[in-house]
């Protein structure tokens, strides 16, 4: 489907509006000088860990487990990231190293 310039612009504006509303809403609802209800503080504490778990599953959800190579490159790269992170404990190194290993695997070993 080919979009006209106006359609493209409207889509960008709609997405922008949606994004900005979700970013500002919590801060507008619970301004700095007011103490938010305890349940909000609770969710603020537990949500980051839960969301990180959710996001890991989310980015892996389209990995084809049933077809070759059965998610093996992903599994190996993640295992490497866990080891690398335990060893050096550097966010930057673990991300870059894990990505490099994954690229080697999909371009070389499982190509």
């Amino acid at each position: 489907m080919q979009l006209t310039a106006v359609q493209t612009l409207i889509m960008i504006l709609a997405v922008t509006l949606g994004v900005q509303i979700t970013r500002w809403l919590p801060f507008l609802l619970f301004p700095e000088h007011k103490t938010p209800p305890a349940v909000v503080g609770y969710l603020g504490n537990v949500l980051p860990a839960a969301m990180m778990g959710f996001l890991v599953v989310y980015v892996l959800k389209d990995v084809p487990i049933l077809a070759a190579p059965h998610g093996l490159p992903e599994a190996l790269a993640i295992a490497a990231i866990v080891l690398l992170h335990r060893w050096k404990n550097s966010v930057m190194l673990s991300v870059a190293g894990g990505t490099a290993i994954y690229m080697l695997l999909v371009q070389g070993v499982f190509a």
Partner: protein
Amino acid sequence: MSLLEKYKGMGRLRPFLIYALCDETFSLVSTVDPPEGVTPKAFYGWISLLNYLYWVIGSALGGMLGQVLSFNTAGLDFALTALLVVLFLEQWKKKENRPAALIGVACAALCVAIFRGDMVIPAMLLIVAVLLLGRRRLCN
């Protein structure tokens, strides 16, 4: 909501921090604490500004050079997966985060099984519901 506390006392920087709060910035800011000798204001401000610039510059470059570029980028998109795995591990370091982290994984996996590609909204609702139901136990 997780950042209400952290973004207190940011003064004139606060509107920019909120405006520029993309996924990547949120992930970093909510997981990694400012290193010793770095003020929270500088730490959060620079992460936000740099991520914002990476988005703008990266997208612009990609749009202009995407056609010309020819090296094999297969697998490069795994960087996002790698980042999220690392941030998950960072959360996992704190014992009290582990139940919530597992709830996130389990609810998301369940919703992938049921809803496939449409798992985002149901999974988020389920996670919040489970977290609220388990509040007593998770607080202890």
